[in-house]
């Protein structure tokens, strides 16, 4: 499994993509969907306050949650649009390049985070499992999901480093 990430003037370029990693990248938008799994849904849309504060909770559900849903959906749509670069079969994977424009870095961070949280919630990973970055080989569906969480985390770290280095951090 391999790929190369290079910093370019206006973003990040991922090349030399292994087909397996390319497939994981293409799964980001789908992985971010809670699919009516309560644990995943509850993690993405967590309670803002003690449930005893009923008024605040119901106002939050009515006014804030739809806005959060729109924000998350816009992020995954942006990523899905960028991932179209990996579609088609005219070139072998090794020759395909995924360019992540710097202007889409925030959307990528958000979508990757959504995907990681949803996968972790669906699999109910323990803290120990999530901290085990070097678990191998991939022998089960659960191992694969954990690998996916770690791979997306690796990509997030890279994008974050890019943001920090190129913009001096905390760009909004």
């Amino acid at each position: 499994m391999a790929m190369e990430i290079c910093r370019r003037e206006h973003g990040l370029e991922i090349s030399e993509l292994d087909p397996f990693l390319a497939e994981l990248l293409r799964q980001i938008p789908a992985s971010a969907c809670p699919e009516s799994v309560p644990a995943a849904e509850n993690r993405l849309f967590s309670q803002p306050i003690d449930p005893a504060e009923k008024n605040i909770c119901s106002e939050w559900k009515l006014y804030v949650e739809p806005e959060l849903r729109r924000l998350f959906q816009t992020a995954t749509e942006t990523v899905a649009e960028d991932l179209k670069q990996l579609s088609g079969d005219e070139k072998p994977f090794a020759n395909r390049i995924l360019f992540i424009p710097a202007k889409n870095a925030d959307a990528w961070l958000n979508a990757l985070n959504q995907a990681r949280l949803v996968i972790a919630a669906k699999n109910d990973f323990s803290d120990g499992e999530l901290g085990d970055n070097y678990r191998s080989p991939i022998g089960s569906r659960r191992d694969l999901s954990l690998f996916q969480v770690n791979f997306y985390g690796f990509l997030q770290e890279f994008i974050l480093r890019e943001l920090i280095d190129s913009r001096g951090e905390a760009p909004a």
Partner: protein
Amino acid sequence: MRAEVAQHQSVALLPVQEVSGPAISDPTTEKQTETEEEVDLPWQVVVHNDPVNLMTYVTMVFQRVFGYPREKAERHMLEVHHKGRSILWSGVRERAELYVQQLHGYLLLATLERIG
């Protein structure tokens, strides 16, 4: 679609001027503006530990949302990591709600709590 992201984020992610403690502790402010907001004091914004969110990501979010310098953001991040929670801000409810909303936009586990 991309323009929507930029527009949304520019609204949601504006760093807000740092407040070093509960607004009620500032006697000057208290005298000058006895508004409904001040009567509503005090609330706090709490961020809870989450084993999925990356430490660097959490630090970046604290910098962006609260306008904290990197060192302060890191201190809060480490407090969340080691103690399970950290109080990021205290003050009026309306502003605290806005902070919690922004933190949820970044997918952090954040809650609003009444002080006391």
